């Protein structure tokens, strides 16, 4: 296991999330993008990312496996098929953006960014250690190619809407994707931002709810029921699509439907299984925020062969 890595800490002030093109011509430059992966290729990456998630949280001895594993297919499809982005040029102004509003699921994002080539794969197991770029929650001071620092639930849709409106003002084709937890949507700000998104017709935003039925203290239905979820988003003026969040072709189809939806933002309600892929973590509230023991890591990795 690699030790803590050294890094030059980037002060928030020196970080410009939006470097506008200096001339409109440079905006038009064709940027070589990530090559789109096929469904079988993405399934292979998904399995590898699940292993990375288990290994890094196991090495850190703390972290959130459940909500990282439930989001794997959604994040894989975004990074390897749907989004227009370029790891060699992370600040490309017209890129599509992804915000992990449920920042505690950082391991799934770190795995996807490392697999894409944004950040070093061989340092994933420094997660949460002093000096690691892989901080406990996504931190733009440590990984400038992240779109946002997150970790306080409920704020991501607002961020996404701001980014998307900026893209609209800039006549940029950039689309913004934001992932929320089903517990997270209990935050009032989510619904304030939902109203805003519909009112301002921000159709270049897609909110994805990782509907895994579990939050920190237990099952969502026992803490604060959020049903009927799709109807709530519809009532707030969004186009809502319900899918199986582990079915990559269904995810692709939903993104396509979102892209074709004009005048209103889209919410994808992705039914998922918390802890997906590791039998003893599936649907088990314990693994919201508990790291697997070394024995559990071994068992999980066997299952993820």
């Amino acid at each position, binding site marked *: 296991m690699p030790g803590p890595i050294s890094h030059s800490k980037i002060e928030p002030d020196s970080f410009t999330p939006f470097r506008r093109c200096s001339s409109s011509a440079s905006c038009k430059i064709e940027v070589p993008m990530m090559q789109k992966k096929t469904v079988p290729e993405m399934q292979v990456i998904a399995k590898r990312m699940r292993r990375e998630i288990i290994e890094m949280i196991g090495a*850190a001895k*703390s*972290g959130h496996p459940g909500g990282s594993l439930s989001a794997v297919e959604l994040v894989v499809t975004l990074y390897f098929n749907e989004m227009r982005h370029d790891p060699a040029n992370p600040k490309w102004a017209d890129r599509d953006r992804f915000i992990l509003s449920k*920042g505690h699921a950082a391991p799934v994002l770190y795995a996807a960014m490392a697999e894409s080539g944004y950040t070093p794969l061989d340092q994933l197991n420094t997660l*949460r*250690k*002093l*000096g*690691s770029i892989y*901080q*406990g*929650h996504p*931190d733009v001071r*440590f990984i400038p190619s992240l779109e946002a*620092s*997150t*970790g*306080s*639930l*409920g704020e991501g849709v607002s961020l996404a809407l701001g980014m998307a409106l900026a893209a609209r003002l800039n006549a940029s084709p950039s689309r913004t994707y934001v992932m929320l937890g089903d*517990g*997270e949507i*209990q*935050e*009032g700000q989510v619904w304030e931002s939902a109203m805003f998104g519909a009112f301002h017709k921000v159709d270049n935003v897609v909110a994805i709810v990782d509907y895994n039925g579990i*939050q*920190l*203290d237990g099952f969502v239905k*026992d*803490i*604060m029921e959020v049903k009927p979820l799709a109807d709530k988003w519809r009532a707030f003026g969004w186009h809502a699509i319900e899918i199986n969040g582990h079915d990559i072709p269904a995810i692709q189809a939903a993104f396509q439907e979102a892209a074709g939806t004009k005048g209103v933002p889209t919410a994808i309600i992705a039914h998922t299984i918390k802890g997906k892929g590791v039998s003893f973590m599936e649907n088990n509230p314990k693994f919201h925020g508990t790291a697997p023991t070394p024995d559990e890591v071994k068992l999980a990795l066997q299952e993820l062969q």
Partner: protein
Amino acid sequence: MIPTKTKFDLKLGMATREAFGKALVEAGRRNKDVVVCDADLSKSTYTSLFHHEFPDRFFSCGIAEANMVAIAAGFAYAGKIPVAASFSCFVVNKGFEQLRVTVAYPKLNVKIVGTHSGISIGEDGPSQMSVEETALACSLPGFVVLSPADEVSTTALVHAAIDHVGPVFIRTGRMKAPVIYPAEQKFEIGKAVELIDGSDVTVIATGLLVAEAIRAQEALEAEGISVRVIDFHTVKPLDRETITRAAAETGAIVVAEEHLIDGGLGVRVAQAVAETHPCVMEFVGLHDTYAESGSPEQLLDKYGLISRDVIAAVHRALARKK
């Protein structure tokens, strides 16, 4: 006052958040008006213990801290004694507008308890680290702000907070905390505890830094420096009498806290010192920065919140005192 020669063995006890959860159950037994609200962190705040014993008086608010604070205000208007808990950063920051207009302004009998305060939560990183909530809570007129150092003081102050009529914020931590007090120690809101008498310099500390101040005193005593150590478990209202006496009798004050220096206990003490008996002061705390992920021990070391830093501040203060 604890006898000067008491040896502090600083054995690790419960985390102050756990002591809070246990005391809350006892408070629930004593007073049936106590109701508890939590925002999907009951396992971390230990309000799950209250939930277990009094399911009818526990209200799950979901991940919605601002709403939780206003719900608690409603309970208080109706004569209940609501205790609303979450991580310090979420309940105070997300609920600040509600704390201001809905709780503090009408001076409601609401108790807010923040757990996981400071940077000693470790690996989760700055988004979950509360380093500004004491400044925010102290800015609310009429609020009592408590910051206990160990399980004994936490237990006593939770009961004192329930008995106090008016809004209270209690700051607790995630890590097991060294036990400072004997079980029978008495505490009073607004009355600091002088732990060790001394004449060259005073260290005023709160929360986790109280144990570090005691460790610093032991090292400094070996150097022949006489250090007075005072636990400010109440940050507001401030025990100005104890501060004035320390300023007059020792002529130098170091304040140590696991919080941003801006707006923390230190600047509050400095105001009292400036108004009563100006003397040399130094500050141990976070210098205008957020921390990062790491183990609690690594972070306290890197961000300058251990006995070494208290010792250095004492030396600076004494050098300036001449």
